[in-house]
């Protein structure tokens, strides 16, 4: 029925995602944020192929080099082969930023996906099945009241050695940190999703679907989830940002990865001592963290507008 009307109409066929894109484009911050996110992702992913310097290689003779933009105007030690300078042990800062970015971004994305999955699952279950609602929401409150840092400390104590034995030191800590952040940051998503599900559940199209005997599984995947997509996407972007910040905070406190495993937060931490003499060493990783987080927040902002049919004007 629908297909016949569409083929006969004169309006060109248009996917709804094109509408979303059109709306998204009107949000300038979101577009700039998106462009920056793509740039920084490519920077950390393709960087090692273009910039083939070992981030961990020590080169004591060439320590404390300044970046080129200072070198061009002042009489300091610098070199084009180390455009952003070197640290106090002669490690290339550019290579460290690239390698550190890979870890920070990987932690951010993985923890975000984990928390999104948990949050959506619990939110949908609580909103849809009345019997589960009370217990799941009390559980959410419980987890919400747990502080992240002590939990991570305890997790470190309990699981560090088994995970290290099973996956090696770096992957082990990666799993530990990602799951630590993931399982302590899904609660807000769960609450938002539950609220939306509760509202949508009573709408006519859901009643209609129920009246023709749609099973709960199909009901959730076909009718409910697509309608709560917008809040989920928004909390996803916020989740990515907060995961990167949490990892930085952990590295900053010395609780994260081993010291020879750079992340943006760790580079920042190691440079604080010499902040006054070598400001570039804190500015660059700091900029990477804040710009990534900012751009992701803008994208979330734009997506919320774009995904909401009422704002989109349909």
């Amino acid at each position, binding site marked *: 029925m629908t297909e016949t009307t569409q083929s006969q109409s004169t309006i060109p066929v248009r996917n709804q995602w094109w509408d979303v894109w059109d709306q998204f484009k009107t949000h300038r911050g979101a577009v700039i944020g998106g462009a920056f996110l793509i740039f920084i992702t490519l920077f950390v992913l393709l960087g090692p192929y273009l910039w083939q310097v070992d981030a*961990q*290689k*020590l080169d*004591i003779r060439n320590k404390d080099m300044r970046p080129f933009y200072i070198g061009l105007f002042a009489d300091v030690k610098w070199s084009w082969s180390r455009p952003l300078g070197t640290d*106090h*042990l002669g490690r290339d800062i550019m290579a460290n930023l690239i390698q550190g970015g890979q870890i920070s971004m990987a932690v951010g994305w993985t923890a975000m996906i984990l928390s999104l999955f948990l949050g959506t699952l619990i939110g949908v279950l609580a909103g849809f099945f009345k019997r589960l609602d009370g217990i799941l929401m009390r559980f959410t409150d419980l987890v919400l009241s747990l502080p992240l840092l002590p939990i991570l400390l305890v997790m470190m*104590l309990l699981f560090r*050695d*088994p995970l*290290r*034995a099973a996956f090696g*030191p770096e992957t082990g800590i990666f799993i530990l940190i990602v799951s630590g952040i993931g399982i302590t940051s899904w609660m807000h998503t769960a609450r938002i999703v539950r609220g939306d599900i509760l509202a949508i559940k009573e709408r006519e199209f859901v009643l209609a679907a129920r009246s023709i005997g749609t099973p709960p599984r199909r009901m959730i995947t076909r009718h409910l989830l697509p309608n709560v997509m917008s809040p989920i996407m928004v909390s996803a972007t916020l989740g990515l940002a907060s995961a990167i910040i949490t990892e930085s905070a952990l590295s900053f406190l*010395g*609780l994260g990865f*081993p*010291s*020879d495993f750079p992340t943006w937060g760790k580079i920042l931490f*190691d440079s*604080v*001592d*010499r902040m*006054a*003499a070598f400001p570039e060493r804190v500015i660059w990783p700091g900029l990477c963290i804040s710009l990534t987080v900012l751009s992701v927040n803008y994208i979330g902002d734009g997506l919320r507008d774009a995904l909401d049919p009422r704002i989109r004007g349909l």
Partner: protein
Amino acid sequence: MKIKTALAGAVAAMAFAPAAFAERGSDGHLSIIYWQAPSILNPFLSGGTKDIESSSMIIEPLGRYDQNGNMVPYLAAEIPTVANGGVSEDLTSITWKLQSGLLWSDGTPVTSADVKFTADYCMHPEGGCAQAAKFDKVTSVDIVDDLTVTVHFSQAMPNPYGPFMGGQSPIIQKAQFENCMGAKAPECTDANFGPIGTGPFRVTEFRTNDVIQMEANPNYRDPAKPAFATVTFKGGGDATAAGRAVLETGEFDYAWNLQLAPDVIDSMAAAGVGTAISAFGSLVERIEVNLTNPSPSLPEGERSTVAHPHPFLSNANVRKALSIAIDRNLLVEVGYGRAGRPTCNLVPAPALYASDNTECLTQDIEGAKALLEAEGYVDSNGDGVREKDGVELRVLYQTSTNAVRQDFQALIKEWWQEIGVATELRNLDASVYFGGDPGSPDTYQKFYADVEMYANNFDGTDPQAYLAAYRCGTEPKPSSQWQGENINRFCDPNYDALIDQLAQTGDLEERGRLGRMMNDMMTKDSNVIIPLVDRGRVSAHSNSLGGVVLNTWDSELWNVSDWYRIK
């Protein structure tokens, strides 16, 4: 004219002098920051310097060492020697006489019973006393009268100043600790967190791993001291923050052990609020090698115990290769500047005991490789890591979280990588790492790693107790609540024989020879301990704090009762 000026100067000096000798509590508040937070105020239950030094303001030994390593009486009337009859001719006993009229901070008199009790407390077989080495060879402590005790040793003790001398073996009050003997020792929280002492200050509030509030002890033996009425002893944070707090912002008066890169300290001191002070002692930054297997696959309670020797670090040539691959001169340049010097010795001072062992000062990567080749460790699968019989040379290298130590880790990791040893780095929070909590897997005593790095020293000028710590069977183990100073789990009957021989030798030259020999056994010959840097101690005090004398032979706070505010 000249005489007049001199006289005027003398008068002026007289006029200013009273500021330094003011009455008790007249100089207000003193703030001290230690970036490792004290977790207990009972040094018998903790090997951590932070715990020993913080408690040294509250509880005192019979005598201390001054900044030159000389003995000074504290609670004792005088230092007993053979000459004054305090030490018996055959060197098997020493008789201490307390000053008369001493009071505990609760007002009760200090008696010889307290001194005897202190020895019994630490020598209790179930207690796992962290300072047990101080009481090595003590058979009994006899009360002669109310103020006199005689310590009997099982053999001639040429250096009988182990018990009751220095910050590591202060006197505790019998009445307070009477019910805390043996296995019950760690359970007496009130006593361990607020010991009643004879020192210039007493505890008003103790928050574990955070802050200690103290006030002047009303019963302190010198009625004019201490000059400060109250003290805040803040613990925690890191060396950078502590340095800034004293040198740049002036929030604190004294910061302990600023283990920071030399350029960082210089830039902080440029602010002109405080002064960095340094002195060389016996503090050696070293890598300790674990002779037992720390593998997590072993059951808890057997891990890092003598039941399982280490798969490859029990081989002396592997340890030697690790040692000679290190460029110690570069480490000093990167980490300490003038506040450090490269060393191959466990005992770098005093001169009598310092071995002329300089072999390790030249880095020899090729020699290290050849040693490993000769032992049959070759890289047969091309992954850059040598192996033999399926055992790969992979080490876990742990230390406390500290910028200089992490730099050392990075440098040493690179050198070891060059000789085909893969290194995994781990850094732990200093309060946990040095905390001595038997429940934590991350303490330096438990040593759940292949090698670990920290600095240690001995107080006093005699390294006998320090060297005696490596006796067979004194290692940290589950049955001793993981307390003990033989961190490497070293055991060599020849070494034990030397400990006993040193303990029977009175002649100084001979003692020096034995000490150097033992030092060489631990370092040059076996490389069980890989010394890196002889560290000068750098601390800082604000420009308004007077009377600070940095002492590397005892607690840094040894003369805190003499500190005053410069007005």
